[in-house]
């Protein structure tokens, strides 16, 4: 059975144009971009073209792009590099309680090294208010890191306002834009950020490659040490084919973003509207308007999110849940708990995230199946009281 893929926030299928752009760099143009000879230059050409495509997508200068091995690496570089370079004069970081693990676990690591970290809470819609960030900043703050949009509930944060506040205070600003690059129009100058993380596989590029936007003049230490690649900011021979794929995905995103956004947001709105009408005790999560165009997230009272995911999988739909099974116990999403959602409700979380090839017919089928699946699970559930 062909599975309908509604989990584009987890990863996206590489576009055929991306695969075709990468293949020459796995075959004939396999040189080392650092080599001075022609074989090396041909690989370097691919890397630099990709750098220009990506810079255009986010309104940066090509020299401000540092290619990395992932969005997670870019997040690590942003936090660790900012702290290491400035810790002798400023030792405090501000982030939110709904960040990705790549930020949370890195911040926790820095705490073990002596950094002080403040975690700002969001409101019930998952929105981190700029004034809450302002209140958390002290004279010791080196960096504020707030995600551009949340990966679970899709809420888009007011990064431009947060960035402006940080500018007033001379604080570096980072945003984890892994969920938004390629999906929302982004201009780093409008966002007022000094650092921005992104990942290719979230916008139809390959896995294993990401980038950090690093504003010229920002005091941020290198993270991976060795050769002089990426202007000395990220050592290691470049993942040339991956970088070329990222560049092509960026070029295509710039070209197709408006049409894709209109398409996926119509699917999202269909799900949010119809599910609420068809399933009692369903709670939409995330912000009603400030949310990613492709993200529909909700909690279904009286069921476990994992049960929903598995039943939908058996019915031919790939979706995901914010609850994660660890050591046999279902843990509700920390993001949902931070938003003030009761643990029992948070356990029934589901995220449906659409992509460019999804159709309204697929959504119709999903909407027809969901009530019966929820009914069945509620009858089986020990926590079925709504």
């Amino acid at each position, binding site marked *: 059975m062909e599975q309908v893929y509604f989990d584009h926030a987890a990863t996206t299928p590489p576009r055929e144009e991306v695969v075709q752009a990468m293949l020459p760099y796995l075959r004939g143009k396999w040189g080392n971009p650092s080599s001075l000879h022609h074989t090396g*230059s041909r690989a*370097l*050409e691919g890397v*630099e073209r990709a750098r220009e495509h990506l810079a255009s997508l986010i309104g940066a200068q090509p020299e401000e792009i540092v290619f990395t091995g992932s969005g997670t690496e870019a997040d690590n570089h942003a936090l660790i590099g900012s702290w290491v370079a400035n810790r002798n004069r400023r030792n405090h970081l501000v982030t939110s309680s709904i960040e990705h693990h790549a930020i949370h676990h890195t911040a926790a690591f820095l705490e073990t090294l002596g950094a002080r970290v403040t975690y700002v809470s969001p409101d019930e819609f998952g929105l981190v208010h700029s004034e809450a960030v302002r209140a958390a900043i002290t004279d010791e703050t080196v960096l504020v890191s707030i995600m551009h949009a949340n990966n679970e509930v899709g809420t888009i944060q007011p990064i431009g306002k947060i960035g402006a506040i940080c500018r007033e205070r001379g604080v570096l600003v980072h945003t984890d834009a892994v969920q938004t690059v390629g999906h929302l129009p982004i201009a780093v100058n409008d966002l007022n950020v000094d650092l921005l993380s992104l990942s290719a596989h979230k916008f139809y590029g390959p896995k294993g490659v990401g980038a950090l936007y690093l504003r010229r003049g920002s005091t941020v230490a290198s993270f991976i040490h060795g050769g002089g690649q990426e202007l000395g900011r990220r050592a290691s021979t470049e993942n040339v084919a991956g970088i070329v794929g990222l560049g092509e995905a960026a070029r295509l995103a710039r070209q197709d973003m408006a049409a894709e956004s209109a398409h996926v947001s119509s699917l999202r709105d269909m799900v949010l509207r119809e599910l609420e009408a068809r399933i009692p005790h369903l709670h939409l999560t995330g912000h009603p308007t400030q949310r990613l165009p492709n993200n529909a997230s909700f909690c279904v009272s009286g069921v476990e999110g994992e049960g929903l995911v598995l039943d939908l999988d058996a019915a031919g739909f790939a979706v995901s849940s914010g609850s994660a099974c660890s050591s046999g116990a279902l843990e509700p999403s920390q993001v949902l708990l931070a938003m003030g959602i009761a643990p029992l409700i948070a356990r029934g979380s589901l995220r449906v995230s659409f992509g460019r090839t999804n159709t309204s017919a697929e959504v119709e089928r999903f909407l027809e199946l969901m009530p019966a699946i929820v009914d069945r699970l509620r009858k089986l559930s020990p926590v079925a009281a709504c």
Partner: protein
Amino acid sequence: MTVLKPDKCIDLRGTPCPLNWVKTKLRLEEMEPGMLLEVVVDDGAPARNVPRSVETEGHRVVETTRLPDGVRVLIERC
């Protein structure tokens, strides 16, 4: 100095070989045949290598001018 007006200009002083040539090539790719690209590179190896690569790729070096702090290369996209 030439009276020819370039359609595009890039300053690649401080950019090492072969990155200066790669950046020149990417600009030339965006241009139509017959258009002129002005590139300023460092004297020394870049001033020798970039014009040579331009001609190897089939474009035409229209003019090379020594500046106080670099070399200006005017290229016709062929």
